[in-house]
C-alpha cells in the first residue's frame, strides 16, 4: 500500500492537496466536536477528526502510525466512549448546554494566547523549519517506516518505557475494575 500513497503524494501538487484536505477535515471536525451538544454527535465528529489526522500522518509518510491512529483511536477508544454514553443513558437535559460564563471565557483567551504563541514561535524560527516536506519524500531514512523499522528500536533501545507502559496498563485495568465493579 505504501508505494501507492507514495506515488500519489509525489505527483505534482498531490502532497499539498492531500495536506490541505486532511487538515481541513481534521480541524472542521474538531470544531464541530466541541460545538455539538449531543455527546454522541461529538464522538462521531471526533472519529472523523482522527481519521483526518491519520491522513495527515500519511502525508508525513508515517503510514504505520496512521494505521494505529485509525485502529486504536477511531476504532477502540471511541467505541469505548460510545459504549459509556449509551450505558449511562443520559437524559436529554443532561446533555450539556454550551455556555460561555466568565471562567470559561478566560479559558478561551488562554487557548487563543496559546495558539498565538505557537504561531509566533513558528514565525520566529521560520528559517529553521524551512525544509519543504515533499522534498524529503525520497530520503532513505524514511523509507523504513515499516512495522519492522519501528518494532526493532521499540523492543531494544526503547524497551524501558515499553515495560513501564505494561505496568501502566495493568494499573489502569485494576483501577477501572476497582472503581466500577458493583461488588468488591
Amino acid at each position, binding site marked *: 500500500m505504501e508505494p501507492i500513497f507514495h506515488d500519489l503524494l509525489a505527483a505534482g501538487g498531490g502532497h499539498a492537496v492531500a495536506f490541505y484536505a486532511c487538515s481541513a477535515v481534521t480541524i472542521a471536525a474538531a470544531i464541530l466536536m466541541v460545538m455539538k451538544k449531543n455527546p454522541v454527535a461529538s464522538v462521531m465528529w*471526533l472519529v472523523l477528526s482522527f481519521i483526518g489526522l491519520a491522513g495527515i500522518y500519511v502525508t*508525513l509518510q*508515517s503510514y504505520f502510525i496512521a494505521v494505529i491512529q485509525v485502529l486504536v483511536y477511531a476504532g477502540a477508544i471511541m467505541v469505548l466512549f460510545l459504549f459509556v454514553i449509551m450505558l449511562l443513558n443520559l437524559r436529554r437535559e443532561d446533555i450539556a448546554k*454550551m455556555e460561555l460564563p466568565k471562567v470559561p471565557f478566560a479559558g478561551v483567551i488562554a487557548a487563543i494566547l*496559546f495558539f498565538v504563541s505557537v504561531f509566533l514561535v513558528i514565525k520566529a524560527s521560520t528559517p529553521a523549519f524551512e*525544509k519543504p516536506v515533499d522534498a524529503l519524500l525520497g530520503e532513505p531514512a524514511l523509507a523504513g517506516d515499516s512495522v519492522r523499522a519501528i518494532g526493532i528500536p521499540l523492543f531494544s533501545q*526503547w524497551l524501558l518505557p515499553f515495560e513501564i507502559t505494561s505496568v501502566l*496498563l495493568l494499573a489502569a485495568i485494576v483501577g477501572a475494575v476497582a472503581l466500577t465493579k458493583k461488588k468488591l
Partner: protein
Amino acid sequence: MEIHIAHYLIVAGILFSIGLVGVVVRRNAIVVLMCLELMLNAANLVFVAFARMHGNMQGRIFVFFAITVAAAEAAVMLAIIIAVYRQRETVNTDDMDIMQG
C-alpha cells in the same frame, strides 16, 4: 505550493487550542475527555512532523506511548465517570460543586 513543517505545526497548534477551549467550555465530562484526547493528538502530530524532519524514529515511537497512555487514561476516566454517575445521575461538571473554598 510547498508544504513546510511549519504548516503541520500550525495545524497542531490549532487542534491543541480547540481542545483547550473544549476542556474549559464544555460541561459534559465525557466531552471534556474527548477534548483532552484531541490535545494529546495535537502533540502527537508535532512529534510525527518533527520525526519526519529529523528522519529519526524517536518521535514516532513516542507517539506510540502517547497513544497507549491516552487509552489508559480514557479507560480510567470513563470508569470514574461511571462511578460518579451512579451516585448522582449526572456527568455535568457544573454540578460538581459540593466543596466550597
